[in-house]
């Protein structure tokens, strides 16, 4: 087994007495696509935000490429090579699509020309090139989600965290987004994706990690995980037969 890219151990995220994440572990190896799934309120997004440095976990530790990043700020995470998208896209509304991406590209390329070249390459790569000069606010949800991914890629990450990047898309849009994620992966970028849509996890993820009530209840190959009785129970509840008094 190679050295893990990301290693999160015993992550706890408490809000008052409520533990949204309650001792979750996750190890991600270079080149993997890991899917985080689980019912609503399972703590996926909270866990995800801890990985991105958005919120310092109450307890636990996170290491990226052997370096402790538990308490690092979001901007330090990005600098180290962890980029992310948001569940609800937050594009820079007053800028054009190309300018949005430029903000990200400036991180590794302080000079305008080099940054602009990077932007052109990534707009082509993500299929946003025809919209380069359009204001970001003119985009719909699929466009925004794609722009966020493009912008995150501009920071040249080694690990990309996608938070429901495919939710709210039509089936056609989902297919093209899956195709995009595959091409991102083939650039050598490791991915962690949070997704509700089982089809996405089944087709994309090498490994699925299932959250329920703040804990990891199952992990493994996506096909096996979805057949796991614990997972079915987490999604659908216990079977009626067993609930009936004997």
């Amino acid at each position, binding site marked *: 087994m190679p050295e893990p890219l990301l290693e999160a151990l015993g992550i706890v995220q408490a809000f008052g007495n409520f533990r949204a994440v309650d001792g979750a572990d996750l190890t991600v190896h270079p080149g993997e696509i890991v899917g985080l799934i689980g019912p609503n309120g399972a703590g996926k997004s909270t866990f995800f935000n801890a990985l*991105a440095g*958005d919120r310092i976990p109450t307890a636990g530790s996170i290491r990226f490429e052997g370096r402790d990043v538990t308490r690092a*700020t*979001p*901007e330090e995470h*990005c*600098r180290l090579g962890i*980029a*992310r998208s*948001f569940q609800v896209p*937050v*594009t*820079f*509304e*007053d*800028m054009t699509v190309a*300018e949005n991406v*430029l*903000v*990200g590209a*400036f*991180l590794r390329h*302080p000079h*305008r020309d080099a*940054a602009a070249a990077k932007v052109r390459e990534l707009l082509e790569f993500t299929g946003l090139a025809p919209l380069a000069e359009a204001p970001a606010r003119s985009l719909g*949800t699929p466009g925004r989600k794609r722009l966020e991914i493009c*912008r*995150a890629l*501009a*920071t040249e990450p080694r690990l990309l965290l996608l938070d429901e990047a495919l*939710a*709210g*898309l*039509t*089936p056609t849009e989902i297919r093209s987004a899956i195709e995009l994620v595959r091409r991102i992966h083939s650039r050598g970028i490791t991915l962690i994706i949070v997704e*509700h*849509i089982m089809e996405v996890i089944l087709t994309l993820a090498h490994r699925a990690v299932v959250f329920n009530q703040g804990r990891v209840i199952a992990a493994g190959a996506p096909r096996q995980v979805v057949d796991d009785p614990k997972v079915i129970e987490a999604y659908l509840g216990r079977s009626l037969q067993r609930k009936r008094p004997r």
Partner: protein
Amino acid sequence: MKRTVAGLVILLLVLLLPLAVQNEFYQRIGALVLLAAISASAWNLIGGYAGQVSVGHAVYFGMGAYSALLVYTRLGWPPIAGAPLGVAVSLLLAALIGTPTFRLRGHYFSMATIAAAELIRILVSNWELLGAAVGLMGPAMPRSVADLSFTTPLPYYYLFAGVLAVLLGLTWWMQRSRMGYWLRAINGGDRAARSLGVPVLRYKLYALLLSAGFTALAGTLYAVMIGFADPESVLGILVSVKMLIMAALGGAGTLFGPLLGAAILVPLEEATNAIFGGSGTGITYVIYGAIILLIARFQPEGLLALPARLRAWRGRRRARAADAARPLPSATAAPDAENA
């Protein structure tokens, strides 16, 4: 390219206008417009580009003005020699005020800057060294050319134009560089900016320092021309509000927006003063209030964005007209599939 040409045209206009207008009253207003444009453009760096709406910039303006008159009254130096002192004190205060307040967002940041500015104003009002509530005076008669005390407004006009040109040149360069984009990203949203590796607090502080330095310089120039400063005239909240309104009226976060705002508001203020005299000072507040309301309600992006908005509006109307001309109304709006 079009912008470069527009910039050159404005530059030529600024340089030649006072020669065309031989009336000293108008030349003086021209000088005041440029002076106001310097502080509004300085405010624009942090308030416009970075979107951190400071309502406490009077602090830096006041430090510049007081420094000029302080080196004159205590040391007998020409007032302009107070500029480095004013800039230095302002940078220090900016770091002191900015570091804690930049952790606040939106209105809370604005309110904190008001509080800081009022605190400084009250301190100065009770400080004998700075003349307390009475204020400080500049040289009554020019002792040498270094006092920059001129009988005609033209030298001031060109002095201010020079400083404004340096500031706008710097802003133009910044706007095209990484710093400009990162400030606009901060304006667009802290959280997204940080996720892209933008060191948000550090860049807000850079922008504030640059802004405070030039605002202090504007304060010094004001004291040099007017020869007088008291807590109300250079540290009052109206000083801060004017910078904000000028920038917002013309277009906050645009290169020439503050200059346009100053070119509209300064003559307006001079006119109300001329018409209503001393009894009309309250009118200024009423007009500013009305302007704030109108900008906020109808044109938050300022007047410079108006042509683009009109073009977009005409384009939409044409598109609608084309739609209406079609034989059948086609339902093209596909509902967002929520089939997850």
